[in-house]
Structures are given as structure tokens and as C-alpha cells.
């Protein structure tokens, strides 16, 4: 070996590739306030837009008078539906195949709906003018409860499609009904349930909440009337999809639209959809010829842009006396609000809710989901979730607990005897998925041992005795969860959004001096792509991660991709990155062989170089190869060292995890003190352990919020009760417990580097763990089910209902 060559391990470490806890390269900017968000953007002559919004959840708009508003100094225009109609933009298509009003077209269907768009020279003038737009409303009866949507005399919300009972997802049985979606075997499942030893039945409600990213939604549209090009900066989790959709609905040729997602301050699904603000900013820029900025405030974000969850899941689970599950049945009533604006792959109007058999080998299952219109804001996005996987995981993990109660069994043991076994993978689920890999028993045992489960149960029994003896007013709850996710949407053969296939992409250019730039079709909103994708590439092409620039979010430069949500970046774009790297390496091999004057097959890859087989002192480093690729004439080889990969995944990936929450509940105050939270995640190959840990901490804290207090609540009149952060629960560091993180590693067999994705697992698994712990505390008093969020008064009410205050 060449004396000058450092050992393999040292060279590999210098790359900071896979498995390295490399510090986030983004943070030097963010921690110094040097991020560049949409609202930081200032373009010459820029105008500001602001909405007039409906105070009523259901009303006809009789008239709109904009005279007084137009008279405010600085006001340039006030747009209404009548102004957008000639352009065909008063309505827009939703991602779910429905259409949505951009500005109120004759009626409003939820409180906070956009009615008029004021454009002014500054924000203050716009806000003043908003107050002066006179709108005459005629209030209509309100539909808040989805179970009352189809009763006699229910108000018809969507009069525009009342007579069209053939929707985007098949037949609609009522004007307020959106779709029925089924999976699995109905008759077979009902037969199994009819014959079963034991059947547990329960209504599991996963309440309406909101992703509430730190940065609200916004856009700056700039139409250059000279060259006909539209530049649209915005908070977009899928910039390429926005470009295509914008082109399709506006008629502007796609090459004349440039969409840029700058830094994004959190998305969590809230920034997947297309909002009226974006459309109005574009139209206003076209009308005025000036850039127009629209940025919503917090109240607007919570009350009008996409909500999450709101699934009423009626479940039946059948088992033998010994606890072997034989069948699962679920009927879900899905409250979609006023327009069906769910962000799901087209063929999946209820997302991947059919992953609701979870981690268990359930031979027979049936799922039916009915989507319903109500007078609430549209949405139904995947809040740190892969298309309704959180709802599915919550459903099955509650049903397992309910079954354990019915069987009078320990819930940990019930899970263990029903897990899909390691040798059953790839596993075909009863509801149609092929789970790629898993080792649930190993993870489960590791988790139970880590928290000393047996001892916890003994302590709980003692506490119960003390409680009954009047020695304490606290009860102990142990919340178990074993979740299986389905992420990485997805194979183009069955995954598309508005017809756009859900592949993703990476393009790499190696510079002559051996550094590189890589561009992807995804967009980071805090996930740390610039850090982790460079690590994938470093391991693939032997260039240090520190020498690789990552760029995303500019549709003029980045290759086409479907963006970042549903934990799809690593499974899809991460795979594209590895595959593009391999193309680079293949060409580098030819160049190295030429330079070393041997046949291609006579060189082999060695961390950061190609060496001649059997003669390790003869090598060419990637740095040398990069220089040669541009500057040396090599017969039969084009100059340059670039590659692009568009990756269509063969399957989804199936991360899983085992979470355990231990808490103490004060039955008098209804407060819950979370004592221990243990989270074991298996996300396949681990790219950056530090970033995984950060993702898990963040996702668990969101799960804590959702389970313990966060909700978008409406009163009976359709008014939003939780429209500000005074009432919409975001935990501070004080409310957030310490988390213990752990892992097992079961690589995905079909992913180029075996990675599965992790960003959403803690939200998916965390919510049932917290909620199961609350339920478990009251199990011995006969509680089987109570609905989230478990805030103080609801816990108190549960205790009260069980007679614990008598």
C-alpha cells in the first residue's frame, strides 16, 4: 500500500457519509437570523394583499361594496369573485379532485373563508381597507356534525355540485356526501366477526387539529409583463407540482413560470395544498404588473389553511379466546369541511388509511371510509404523517387496547402474539399492502426490557391499591404502542397527485476540482436535506459531504420532483441521490481505468478512489478523476462528470417503532405528569443519527400536543373556538418531557441504501402512546374509550364519570 494513503476507516470518516452525526449545515444561517423566508423577500414596487374573510360559517353573499375600501390612500385594487370569473380563476381545482372557491362565489361555506382580496401599497393600508369592504350576508343553517349531514332537512352545502352525484371518487349518495372508499373483504370480515369467540367494538375519534408551522403560508407573485414570465416565491412543499398546476389553471406556459420555495419554516403538510392567497397574489400581479406579497397571520393560518385528522372510526376487532386476532372491521366518517382539499394520492381518497391492520397479522379485514362536507375549513392534510397513517395507527393501537380489556389480557402480550413474524416479510396485508421488512418481536422485547415493563406494572398495581386506600389522588398509566408506517409515496403505477407521478429526482454535477453540487426535486422545511443528502452522496461517490452543495426549491434549476411530505424525501429522493451517485461512479470507473491504463473491470472502488485490483498502490482519487473528466481527452468518453436520476420506487417503505409512555394523572386537577417516554424507532439504514434523534424529539412533542390538548374546535354555530395560540396548544419546553430514544435497524430490501424515512414516525406512534397511557390509568375503573385531546378538563370529566370524585 502507498505510504501516503491513510487507512480506509480514516478516509471514510473524513467523508462524513452514512451513519455520521454530522452537524446540520443549515444551522449556521438559521441560528444567526440569516434565513431567507418568503416574508423576508422585498421586490421593487411590491404591493401587499390581505383578505376580507367571512365571519359566518354558512351564508349567501348578497352584495359586496368596495367603494370605501378603494378610497383608502394606497389601495390599488379590491378583487372579488366577479373579477376572477372572466379568467376562470374564481374557483380552482383541489388536490383531491374537487374544486374550491378562490373568492366567495355567491356564498360562503366556512368561517374565515376568503371573500375579497385587497391590494395596497403597504400592509397597513390593506388592513384598513379590509375593514371597509362592505359585504351583505344572508345567514344559512349550519352543518357542523358530519353525522347529521344526510338527515332529512340537512342544509345542502355545495349547491354547485348538488345535482352531480358522480364525484371524483365514484358515486355520491347525498349532496353532502363526497365519496365512499372501500378496501378488503366486507362479507368475509363480517362473517369472521359474526363467528368469533370475542369481538370488541368501539368508536375511536381522532379529533381535528392543525399542523401549525412556525412560519405561516405566504407567497410573492411577480409577473414580468415584458418577457411574460411569472416568478412565484412561496411556502410550497411541492414547488414543481405548484408550477405544473399553476400552468394548467392559468394557461401560462410552464416554461414561463418559475416557482421558488425559499427557506421554509416548517410545513408538516400545511404547505402541500394550493391556497386562495397564492392564486390571488398571482392574479393581482398580472392585473397590476407589480410584485404582490400575501402572507397570512396566525389566526388565518389556524382557521383557513389546511387542517388535519377529524376521522370518526367505528371499529370491530375479532379474536379467539386466546387472543389471536381473526378479523378487523372499520367504518370511518371523515369530516372534510367545505371543499375536499385533502392532499392524498389520487387513487387514495382516504390516504393510506388501509394500513390500519398495523403491525399485526390479521387475516381478514374490511375498511370503508365516507367523506362528508361540513361548514368547516377545508384540508385533511397529512400533519407530519403519510396520508392518514396517523389515523390508522391510532385506530389499531386503540382497538388493540380495547380488545385487551375485553379479553382481560395484558396489552403487551396481546400485541406480541399477533405481530407479523420476521420470517413473514415481505408480508401481504389483508388490506392490500406489501410490507417490505420488519422485526417487530425484537423491537418489542428491547422496548419492554428498557423500561422494565414488569416492574412498572407492579408499581401501577401498588399505586392503585394506595389510591383505593385514600393514600394518593394520582393514578399511573402505561401507554404502549407498536406502530407500522407506510411512507415514501410512491410507485408511479399507483401513486399520483392530480396525475403527476410521485417519483423524485436528483441531479449531480461534479466540479473539476472535485467538489460537487446536487439538486433535488424535494424541498427541506427543517428536515436538514442539505446535511443528510450530502452524506448519502459522500458515501456513494467518495467526495466529502462538506464539499457538496445541496440545492432544492427552484424549478428553473432543480430536476422535477413531487416535493417533501409524507416522509417521502429519503425513501424517494434519497434513493434518486444514491442512484445518480452510482451513475457518477460508473463513469468515474471508466475514466480511472483509462488513466491507470487498465481495463474497466480491473479497477475497484475503495471509499474515495478507484484502485487497480491487486495493486493498491495504483489508484486515482475522485478528485483526480473529476479533474481529468473535464480536462483530459478520453477516447469514447464525453467530457464532464454529471448525472441525473429519476427514481420511481418499486414499493413503499415500512418504518416501525415501539413507544412506551408512563404518566401520573391527578384525578382532581386532571393534569398528567409524563414521567417516562421511551421511543424505539426502526427506520432502516440510519443516515444521520443526530438528525434522527432531533426528528423524533420534534415529532413526539407534536404528538404530545395533539394527544394532550391541541385541537381545532368548532361550536355548534360553526364558529372556530381555538383560532389563536392562546387556545391552540403548542407545548413549551416546560410541558415537554425528556425523551429516551433507541433503535433497531432493519433495512428496506428495495431501497438503494436501505433507508426507510423517520420524520413522521414519532407523530404517528407518539399520539397512541400518550393516549393509551391516559386510558390505561383508568382501565381498572372500567374505562374503555374516551376521546382526545386529553386536556385537564376532559381527564377530570373522565375521572368524574367513573365516580372518582365521590
Amino acid at each position, binding site marked *: 500500500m502507498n505510504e501516503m494513503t491513510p487507512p480506509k476507516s480514516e478516509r471514510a470518516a473524513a467523508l462524513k457519509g452514512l451513519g455520521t452525526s454530522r452537524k446540520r449545515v443549515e444551522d449556521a444561517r438559521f441560528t444567526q437570523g440569516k434565513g431567507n423566508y418568503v416574508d423576508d423577500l422585498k421586490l421593487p414596487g411590491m404591493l401587499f394583499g390581505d383578505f376580507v374573510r367571512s365571519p359566518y360559517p354558512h351564508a349567501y353573499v348578497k352584495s359586496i361594496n368596495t367603494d370605501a375600501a378603494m378610497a383608502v390612500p394606497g389601495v390599488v385594487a379590491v378583487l372579488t369573485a366577479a373579477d376572477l370569473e372572466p379568467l376562470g380563476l374564481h374557483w380552482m381545482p383541489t388536490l383531491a379532485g374537487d374544486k374550491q372557491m378562490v373568492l366567495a362565489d355567491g356564498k360562503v361555506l366556512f368561517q374565515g373563508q376568503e371573500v375579497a382580496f385587497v391590494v395596497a401599497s403597504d*400592509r*397597513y393600508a390593506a*388592513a*384598513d381597507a379590509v*375593514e371597509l369592504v362592505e359585504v351583505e350576508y344572508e345567514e344559512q343553517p349550519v352543518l357542523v356534525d358530519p353525522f347529521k349531514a344526510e338527515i332529512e332537512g340537512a342544509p345542502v352545502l355545495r349547491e354547485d355540485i348538488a345535482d352531480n352525484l358522480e364525484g371524483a371518487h365514484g358515486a355520491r349518495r347525498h349532496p353532502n356526501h363526497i365519496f365512499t372508499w372501500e378496501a378488503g373483504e366486507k362479507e368475509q370480515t363480517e362473517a369472521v366477526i359474526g363467528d368469533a369467540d370475542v369481538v370488541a367494538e368501539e368508536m375511536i375519534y381522532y379529533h381535528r387539529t392543525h399542523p401549525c408551522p412556525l412560519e405561516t403560508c405566504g407567497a410573492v407573485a411577480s409577473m414580468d409583463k415584458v418577457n411574460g414570465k411569472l416568478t412565484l416565491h412561496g411556502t410550497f412543499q411541492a414547488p414543481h407540482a405548484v408550477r405544473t398546476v399553476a400552468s394548467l389553471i392559468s394557461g401560462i406556459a410552464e416554461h414561463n413560470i418559475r416557482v421558488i420555495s425559499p427557506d421554509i419554516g416548517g410545513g408538516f403538510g400545511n404547505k402541500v395544498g394550493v391556497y386562495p392567497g397564492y392564486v390571488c397574489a398571482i392574479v393581482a400581479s398580472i392585473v397590476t404588473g407589480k410584485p404582490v406579497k400575501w402572507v397570512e*397571520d*396566525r*389566526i388565518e393560518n389556524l382557521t383557513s389553511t389546511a387542517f388535519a385528522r377529524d376521522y370518526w372510526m367505528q371499529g370491530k376487532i375479532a379474536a379467539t379466546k386466546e387472543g389471536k386476532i381473526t378479523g378487523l372491521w372499520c367504518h370511518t366518517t371523515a369530516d372534510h369541511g367545505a371543499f375536499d382539499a385533502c392532499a392524498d394520492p389520487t387513487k387514495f381518497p382516504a390516504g393510506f388509511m388501509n394500513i390500519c391492520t398495523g403491525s399485526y397479522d390479521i387475516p381478514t379485514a374490511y375498511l370503508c371510509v365516507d367523506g362528508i362536507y361540513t361548514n368547516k375549513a377545508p384540508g385533511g392534510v397529512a400533519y407530519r404523517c403519510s396520508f392518514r397513517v396517523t389515523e390508522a395507527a391510532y385506530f389499531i393501537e386503540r382497538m388493540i387496547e380495547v380488545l385487551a380489556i375485553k379479553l382481560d389480557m395484558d396489552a403487551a402480550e396481546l400485541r406480541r402474539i399477533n405481530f407479523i413474524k420476521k420470517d413473514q416479510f415481505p408480508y401481504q396485508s389483508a388490506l392490500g399492502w406489501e410490507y417490505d421488512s420488519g422485526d417487530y418481536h425484537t423491537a418489542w422485547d428491547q422496548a419492554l426490557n428498557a423500561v422494565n415493563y414488569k416492574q412498572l406494572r407492579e408499581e401501577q398495581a401498588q399505586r392503585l391499591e394506595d389510591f383505593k386506600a385514600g393514600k394518593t389522588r394520582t393514578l399511573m398509566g402505561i401507554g404502549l404502542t407498536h406502530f407500522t408506517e407506510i411512507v415514501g409515496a410512491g410507485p408511479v403505477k399507483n401513486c399520483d397527485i392530480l396525475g403527476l407521478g410521485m417519483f423524485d429526482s436528483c441531479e449531480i454535477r461534479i466540479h473539476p476540482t472535485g467538489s460537487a453540487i446536487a439538486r433535488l426535486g424535494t424541498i427541506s422545511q427543517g428536515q436538514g436535506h442539505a446535511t443528510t443528502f450530502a452524506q448519502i452522496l459522500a458515501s456513494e461517490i467518495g467526495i466529502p459531504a462538506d464539499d457538496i452543495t445541496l440545492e432544492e426549491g427552484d424549478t428553473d434549476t432543480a430536476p422535477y420532483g413531487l416535493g417533501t411530505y409524507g416522509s417521502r424525501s429519503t425513501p424517494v429522493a434519497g434513493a434518486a441521490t444514491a442512484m445518480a451517485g452510482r451513475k457518477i461512479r460508473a463513469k468515474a470507473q471508466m475514466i480511472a481505468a483509462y488513466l491507470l491504463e487498465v481495463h474497466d473491470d480491473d479497477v475497484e472502488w475503495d471509499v474515495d478512489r478507484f484502485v487497480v485490483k491487486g495493486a493498491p498502490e495504483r489508484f486515482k482519487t475522485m478528485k483526480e478523476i473529476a479533474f481529468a473528466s473535464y480536462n483530459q481527452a478520453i477516447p469514447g468518453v464525453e467530457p464532464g462528470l454529471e448525472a441525473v436520476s429519476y427514481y420511481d420506487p418499486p414499493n413503499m417503505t415500512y418504518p416501525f417503532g415501539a413507544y412506551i409512555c408512563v404518566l401520573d394523572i391527578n384525578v*382532581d*386537577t*386532571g*393534569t398528567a405528569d409524563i414521567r417516562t417516554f421511551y421511543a424505539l424507532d426502526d427506520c432502516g439504514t440510519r443516515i444521520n443519527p443526530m438528525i434522527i434523534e432531533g426528528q423524533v424529539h420534534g415529532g413526539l412533542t407534536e404528538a404530545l400536543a395533539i394527544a394532550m*390538548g391541541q385541537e381545532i*374546535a368548532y361550536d355548534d354555530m360553526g364558529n372556530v*373556538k*381555538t383560532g389563536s395560540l*392562546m*387556545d391552540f*396548544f*403548542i*407545548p*413549551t419546553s*416546560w*410541558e415537554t418531557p425528556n425523551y429516551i430514544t433507541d433503535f433497531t435497524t432493519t433495512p428496506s430490501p428495495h431501497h438503494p441504501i436501505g433507508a426507510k424515512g423517520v420524520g413522521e414516525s414519532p407523530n404517528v406512534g407518539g399520539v397512541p402512546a400518550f393516549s393509551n397511557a391516559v386510558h390505561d390509568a383508568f382501565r381498572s375503573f372500567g374505562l374503555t374509550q374516551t376521546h382526545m385531546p386529553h*386536556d*385537564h*378538563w376532559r381527564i*377530570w*370529566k373522565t375521572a*368524574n364519570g367513573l365516580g372518582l*370524585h365521590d
Partner: protein
Amino acid sequence: MIPAAFEYHRPDSVEDAVKIISDHGDEARVVAGGHSLIPMMKLRMTGLSHLVDLQGIGGLKGISVDGGTVTIGAMTTQHELIADDQLAASAPIIREAALQIADPQVRYMGTIGGNVANGDPGNDMPGLMQCLAATYTLVGPSGERTVSAREFYEAAYFTAREDDEILTSISFDASASGYAYEKQKRKIGDYATAAAGVLISKDGGSCSAASIALTNLADTPIYCEEAVAKLVGSSLSGDDISAAVAAAVGASDPSEDNRGPVEFKKHAAGVVVRTAIERAIERA
């Protein structure tokens, strides 16, 4: 979240400030820390044309303890209340309560004067001042007067302060009593679901003096006279405490909101009052 236009004034004396608000009537409001008023302006729930900033008036800040009387300038921030050791020695309940108000950033700006004068039933200081039997000094066009904190609050956002008066200082007697301020809230930064301030003095085996006041359990703070009567002269037995708790809960009149229904709030009121009484007895 953008307020309507307003005129900004920054007078350097109380006299000038009073003149501005007298000239403009209910079109003008004084602003101290701004943590109640500014959000209301941004939500356009308060329409005012003249905002009178008191930050420029030097004499309104500071804490003094003189012969057993504590006087606090209205513009003293919550943070300054927490940081003042002399105050902590004379009336430790102030620090205990102030540490439960909002978060450090808010406490750097929020003032005791703004907190007590605004009349928001969610604020913690009004109940605390009733517990301490504090008096407020108000200055208006016709001079200065004092009002007892226990007489000051009429309804939510309605107080004994006239529109052209400014609350300039607060005073109360230093106390060696056992004390406790107990607050249940949903999260840091939230108003109380239920909160109670309690002072208890013992003489031998019996209670020689007591004071109990509630926060956010009605549309004004509540001084619980009947509950106090159950304790004073008693031996502070379990039954005595229970009788006081029942009387305090009976005096509360909470309304339903996102923190919960009335029934729950009354239950929570009982818990915070009991906890506060027990802690105050321990410290007495």
C-alpha cells in the same frame, strides 16, 4: 394583525399624560407594557386614536419599603418584582405569583400597573392585590385619590378608575404571614384555569389572621370574606380548611371556556384553594 392608525404620545410627566387622556376622552388610552392592549389593537377589538406611552415617565418605576409599607410604582415590570430581594423579604407571595405569570420575555415588558389596571379577570395581580389588601393610587385632572383593590373591580374590564385617571402606584403592608399563590394553567403563558392567593398568620395554635383571593374564577377577582371567617380564630384543622375551601368555591362564579366547563373549574378552584391554604399554613 395590523392595528388601525393612531397617534403616539410619550409624555415625561404624569401631569402631561393626564392632560392628554383628558383632552381625548375615550379616544385615548395609556400603555404600560402593552401585553394586553397591543394585541387588542392588532385584533382591532380596541379602537383608539391616541396611545399614551408611560415609559418616558421616570417617577412611575421602583419598589420601596418604608416602615412596613411597601410601595410599587405602576411601571415596575414583573421581572423587576421577581428580582427585588427587599420585596421578596417583605412580601414573598409577590415573587411566587409573578413567576407564574406568562414567560420571561413577557415579564420583561409586562408591568404591575398594567396588570392591575386593565381589569382583565385572567390577570394574576388583581387577585393577589386583593389578598394583600393593597390600595391603588390614581391621578386625574382633579388630583390624587386612593382606592382599595378590594373595591376596584366592577366587571371584566370595568374598574373604579375614571377614563381620565392613571394608576400610578400600589401600596400594601409588609407581612410576615405564611403565604402561597397556587395556579393551575394549561401551559406556560396561559391564564389561570383557577388560581388562589392565600395569607395566613398563626398565634399559638390558632389562626390569627387570614386572607384568600381568587383569580379567573369570575369576571372580577374575588376576595373570599366568608372563607377567611372560617379560618380566623380556628385551629386550622382539616375540617376548618374544608369549610374555608367550600366557602371559597361557593364565592367563585366561573364561566365555561376552552379551559373547561363550570363544574370542572369549581372543582379546580377547590383544589388550588386547598393547596394554597395548606402551603400557607406550613409557612406561617
